[in-house]
């Protein structure tokens, strides 16, 4: 089945470790929301309309996507088992909302997993472009190219004053949400993050934890994104976000230096304890694994730990999640069993020399 390739515990290209400032800015994401004329939006349409929208958009993408030298794989959400949907969510290829399968929906994924197009999410069409590192312009370019191609073949709902019309008024205008995933251990340890978050929200941007519930930033991974989509062009939104992200990266660097010069031994101890836990533990909860992963990442960034490939850590952050673990155990796992499978995953990946490519047959 075509979906198989996307379910493998194989690194998507956004999890690789290329790009500027990649030690702090882990990945970049652009999302464009679009709706078609002549169809009601997903909160109001009938299942019949949803089906038509799904067919129309999917057909255009499969047919015209080639013009951009991408070949897309079409995955119907309702035909996909729940666990596989969750795997796609954990890989950031679809949203939890689409995974619910409220309506006939689809996702079309490019072969390198950098582009995914959700059909019948909260809007008819959501173009998503993912990339490793801090590359807002490039990620936007890719999404924009696809958008410009689609608009030739689909009639978009567009308003002279309000721009692209979306279900949610928070997306109206450009329909664009741009975000950067940031690893901010030093700003978190020094509690500076609690001052930064409210300050940023006053500037039309928002910072929040990306994994975990609510405000808890699992593994010290945060996401900064624009909130304003109206009255600013895509270019201005990207510029503002880029400037703000740059500043946060610099602050994180400064905080790291401060911690390193004030309490180097305490920091080193913490980092090596975490490394010890990840490579030896027999039971690992998501929370503990995420915390230790963050410490080890920091250890690599600060050159305290050498000879460990950062992309493995990026992959582990994704593959240690419940759906992945269960899929590769070939059975549903109780939380305790998951903790065991997770610990084994870490030991296998981190203790083995040749671990970068295409393994996964011996999960759990």
């Amino acid at each position, binding site marked *: 089945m075509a979906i198989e390739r996307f379910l493998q515990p194989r690194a998507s290209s956004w999890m690789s470790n290329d790009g500027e400032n990649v030690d702090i800015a882990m990945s970049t994401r652009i999302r464009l929301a679009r709706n078609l004329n002549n169809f009601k939006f997903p909160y*109001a349409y009938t299942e019949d309309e949803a089906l038509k929208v799904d067919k129309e958009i999917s057909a255009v993408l499969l047919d015209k996507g080639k013009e951009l030298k991408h070949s897309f794989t079409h995955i119907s959400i309702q035909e996909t088992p729940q666990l596989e949907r969750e795997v796609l969510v954990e890989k950031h290829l679809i949203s939890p909302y689409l995974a619910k399968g409220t309506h006939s929906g689809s996702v079309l994924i490019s072969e390198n997993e950098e582009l995914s197009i959700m059909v019948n999410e909260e809007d008819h069409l959501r173009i998503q472009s993912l990339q490793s590192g801090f590359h807002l312009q490039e990620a936007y370019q890719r999404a924009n190219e696809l958008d410009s191609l689609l608009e030739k073949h689909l009639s978009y709902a567009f308003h002279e004053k309000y*721009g692209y019309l979306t279900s949610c008024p928070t997306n109206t205008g450009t329909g664009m949400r741009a975000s950067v995933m940031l690893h901010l251990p030093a700003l978190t340890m020094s509690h500076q993050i609690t001052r930064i978050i409210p300050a940023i929200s006053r500037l039309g941007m928002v910072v929040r934890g990306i994994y975990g519930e609510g405000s808890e930033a699992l593994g010290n991974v945060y996401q900064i994104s624009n909130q304003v989509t109206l009255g600013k062009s895509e270019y201005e939104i990207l510029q503002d976000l880029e400037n703000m992200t740059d500043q946060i990266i610099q602050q994180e660097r400064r905080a790291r230096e401060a911690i390193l010069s004030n309490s180097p031994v305490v920091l080193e101890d913490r980092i090596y304890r975490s490394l010890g836990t990840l490579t030896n533990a027999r039971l690992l909860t998501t929370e503990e694994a995420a915390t230790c992963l963050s410490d080890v990442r920091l250890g690599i960034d600060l050159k305290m730990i050498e000879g460990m490939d950062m992309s493995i850590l990026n992959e582990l952050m994704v593959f240690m999640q419940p759906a992945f673990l269960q899929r590769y155990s070939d059975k549903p796992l109780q939380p305790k069993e998951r903790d065991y499978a997770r610990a084994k995953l870490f030991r296998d990946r981190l203790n083995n020399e040749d671990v970068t490519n295409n393994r996964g047959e011996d999960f759990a």
Partner: protein
Amino acid sequence: MICDQCGDRPASVIVKQNINGQMTERQLCHVCAAGNHNFNIVFEQDPLAIHQLLSNWFPNQQTSPNPIKKEVAVCPSCGFTFNKFLKLGKFGCAECYEVFESQLDEIFKRLHNGNSEHTGKIPASYGSTLKIKKEIEELRKQMKSSIEQENFEQAAKLRDQVKALNVQLEGGASDGN
């Protein structure tokens, strides 16, 4: 004074909330207030919980027993009323934007830092003249910031693009329809 949330018990607590410099005040009973204790931590809220914000801003529309409603706008295409839009925090279709237009500016300004007009990308099919005009505007902005950043090479490139677009505009927008 009755609780704003349950509309049942007497209000005993005032909850003030500051979102983007916008103060809202709600009078709650002790039960609802306890359920809302995370109110002062704005960033903890799900960003999608926009319907909460909307009903905070338009409280009179939410408590519906008041029979003197201004007008009951119903979208003829999808059947959404303005109240339903507020409650859900979502539009039902493109036409909703026209039907509720008189009330939207205020909403958009609060959501988008005072803005209510799109200045970004325009689909090519949407009328090439408008597109070109807006593009020129946008390129000029980029040119200005390039100059500020002393990136003159980039600024020169942008200037040439503006020139080319102006020629197109005078030539009667030859591309598209």
